[in-house]
């Protein structure tokens, strides 16, 4: 076989496995002398290669504990998130391109002021117990998540719904305040539709997802068989799915290489280069919205002084952090919690760089008495948090700022340090839309406002943007808000992390999804065994 035709075959294979976009494919094949028309046809043929059915797909994931439960309201780590996504189905879901996909809902429409939203429920969708999914089930599910006792992680989302009404196949949600983003918010992974809302037994594991849960051993394993009545033929290709909880990095990687599992999450940045060279596996990276932060309480001395905050913001080397802490698997932050993975992101905001002279200038201007500025960190604040804090301290000290790192135990860090101490390391997982990210942590009244940031102008813009339907105006408002947080807030955001997964070559259909790890938790049902 000639070299060119071999390369062409490789590229077709790449397309078939979803590793190459149309543009890349056409560009590279035409370079080999293939006509653009033929290249386009080849691409279409390869990309639409039928996913193969059958077999057992196994995922080995970090982020599971024996304390996990099947109650979707309580899912907080990756293994339950992926585990629930196989047996459960939501009203709507996020697509890799940032749009909303209809799942149990078939259609969505809103009143002109985006205060009343109507969802049309898809007909003939069944739960794994044989019941048909109705608008009442969806309503009961959302009601349960609004109940304080359910301790749902989605409480903040559903509590904004003032009134729910189910009629025939229509579900009508009336919001307390207009929100143009409601469909995005309802893609939250907690909001899996359960029969009767899951009131009788929230941990039954009965849903309308592509797979039926057979075995659940917390912190060990989920095992599923295919749901024969699933409504979407493009999801759920394997006959069986198994999710193994493997928290040890080395064991997880070894399991992938030995073929015991087909996909792993959280590849250690230190071994990404090694794993790339390993036979039979590939490393897949998706730029996400999650970020690692250092947060200052703007209402406590000395951080109540914006000049000091600015001094610290200029005293951090962002690129160095991305290179050394993330091993290059990430991108630099700009002191506001939004990046290009969000819709309506303003990419014209100037990137803040390390500037020792400016840092010194702001520090002198702040009139700080020279006493040590304590920044708390712990190994569990985010992966590499201790090293990151030390790098920050070194670069700040070089600019004459007496920044000191105080190491705290992981034990009780989220209780005793985060949201309590005025300056510490932390992380955020990101949200589907800007409104939700800002409402969760930067609105004056937000419970998780971990920088104690209170700015009337900012709050006003947030509310206005929420109801604004003109996307250009909305983008302008978000840009203004970004500037406020960046220049006045207590947030130092050096880096956005990536989701790094290891995927076996035996697997087809992998797509890099910025929404969440493991193709927005759906890799086991969206991939197939090639």
């Amino acid at each position, binding site marked *: 076989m000639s070299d060119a035709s071999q390369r062409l075959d490789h590229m077709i294979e790449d397309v078939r496995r979803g590793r190459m976009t149309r543009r890349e494919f056409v560009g590279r094949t035409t370079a080999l002398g293939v006509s653009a028309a033929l290249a386009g046809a080849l691409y279409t043929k390869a990309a639409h290669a039928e996913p193969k059915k059958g077999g057992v797909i196994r995922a*080995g994931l970090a982020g599971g*504990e*024996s*304390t*996990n*439960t099947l109650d979707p309201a*309580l899912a*907080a780590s990756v293994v339950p998130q992926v585990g629930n996504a196989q047996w459960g189905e939501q009203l709507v879901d996020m697509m890799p391109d940032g749009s909303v996909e209809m799942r149990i809902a078939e259609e969505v429409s809103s009143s002109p002021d985006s205060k009343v939203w109507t969802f049309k429920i898809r007909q003939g969708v069944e739960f794994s117990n044989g019941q048909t999914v109705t608008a009442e089930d969806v309503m009961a599910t959302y009601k349960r998540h609004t109940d*304080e*006792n359910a*301790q749902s*992680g989605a409480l903040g989302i559903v509590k904004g719904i003032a009134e729910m009404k189910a009629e025939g196949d229509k579900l009508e949600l009336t919001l307390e305040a207009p929100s143009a983003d409601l469909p995005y918010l309802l893609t939250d992974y907690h909001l899996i539709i359960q029969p009767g809302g899951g009131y009788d037994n929230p*941990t039954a594991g009965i849903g309308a997802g592509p797979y039926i849960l057979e*075995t659940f*051993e*917390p*912190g*060990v*394993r989920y*095992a599923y068989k295919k749901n024969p009545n699933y409504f979407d033929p493009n999801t759920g290709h394997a006959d069986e799915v198994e999710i*193994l*909880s*493997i*928290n*040890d990095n*080395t*064991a997880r990687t*070894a*399991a992938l*290489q*030995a073929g*015991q*599992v087909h996909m792993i999450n959280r590849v250690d940045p230190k071994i990404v280069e090694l794993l790339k060279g390993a036979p039979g596996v590939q490393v897949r990276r998706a730029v996400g919205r999650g970020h690692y932060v250092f947060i200052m309480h703007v209402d406590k001395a000395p951080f109540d002084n914006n000049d000091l905050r600015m001094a610290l913001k200029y005293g951090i080397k962002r690129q160095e952090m991305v290179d050394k802490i993330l091993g290059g698997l990430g991108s630099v932050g700009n002191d506001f919690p939004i990046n290009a993975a969000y819709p309506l992101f303003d990419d014209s905001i100037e990137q803040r760089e390390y500037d020792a002279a400016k840092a010194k200038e702001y520090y002198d201007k702040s009139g700080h008495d020279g006493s040590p500025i304590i920044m708390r960190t712990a190994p569990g604040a985010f992966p590499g948090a201790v090293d990151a804090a030390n790098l920050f301290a070194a670069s700040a000290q070089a600019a004459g700022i007496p920044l000191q790192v105080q190491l705290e135990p992981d*034990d*009780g860090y*989220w*209780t*005793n340090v*985060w*949201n309590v101490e005025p300056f510490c390391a932390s992380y955020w997982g990101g949200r589907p839309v800007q409104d939700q990210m800002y409402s969760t942590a930067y609105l004056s009244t937000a*419970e*998780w406002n971990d920088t104690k940031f209170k700015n009337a102008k900012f709050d006003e813009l947030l509310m206005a943007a929420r109801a604004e339907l003109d996307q250009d105006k909305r983008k302008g408002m978000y840009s203004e808000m970004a500037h406020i947080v960046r220049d006045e807030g207590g947030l130092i955001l050096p880096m956005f992390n990536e989701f790094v997964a290891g995927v076996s070559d035996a697997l087809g259909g992998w797509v890099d999804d910025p929404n969440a790890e493991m193709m927005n938790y759906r890799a086991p049902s969206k991939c197939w065994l090639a």
Partner: protein
Amino acid sequence: MHPILKLLVQRIALGLLLLFAVSAVIFLGVEALPGNTAQAILGQSATPQAVANLEAKLGLDQPPLTRYFSWLGGILTGDLGKALTNGADIAQSIGQRLGNTLFLAGCAAAIAVPLAIILGLVAARYAGKWPDKVISGITLSTISLPEFVAAYFVIYLLTQLFPIFQPVAMVFPGMGFWAKLHAVALPVIVLVLVVLAHMMRMTRAAILNVMQSAYVETAELKGLSPMTIIWRHAFPNAIAPVVAVVMLNLAYLVVGVVVVEVVFGYNALGQYLVDHVTKRDLPVVQAVGLIFAAVYIFLNMAADIIGILANPRLRHPK
């Protein structure tokens, strides 16, 4: 009453008393842990109202003494309660995991104990010569390796270089016996490497100690072969210290292998305990702590009793 029987009853009563004391210590220790269960469960979402609701729901607003006695009463009736974090029945979860722990420990012990004793006898027979040096050298090197290093080495060797076994050793109900054995092969190898040296050295030392005795000299003068002397005359008299060390290692295999469990993703008690400590799931921590303490106490008691039975002077007190 026969003195042996009396001794047995005494030991067992002492063991139970000790267990009771341990239960109090465990409870106190868990109480003294920093942090707060409700907050640990809620994590970042711990608003004061949510914390108060959860504490009331979990009964954490009761005074400690009340909670201790209701816990103790539950244990005596076989009811270990429900896990605070996910509401799973603790006795049921522990039952399955304890089975896995004992399976792994049993497999490791079935290989390690006879192997260590045979190697110890051989080392004693050839004390100071090359077989002794080779055996001691190898076993002392493997015990000096941290468990996780040994584990990674074994993973690399037997799953990557020679793909014979699988790196993740989870076992499930419904797996056949041989499938389970195949799954746990790697952790068993690591555990054998870790416990071998201790038992081997103790066997060797105990035998050499006895070899100085006059009756061994008599046996030598009778013309018996060295291996016969060791096996027939020296080993029965060296059994007490060997059993003591074997029991210590068995206890380790049951309660101390969490690192190995984590590295191989083995679903046994150690991992279960650590997960629940992190989440401040006190009922689980207490229950598992008590089981571990019971294992220790039982095995040491067994070592004691076997030591007594093996010693004619203690068996027939004058």
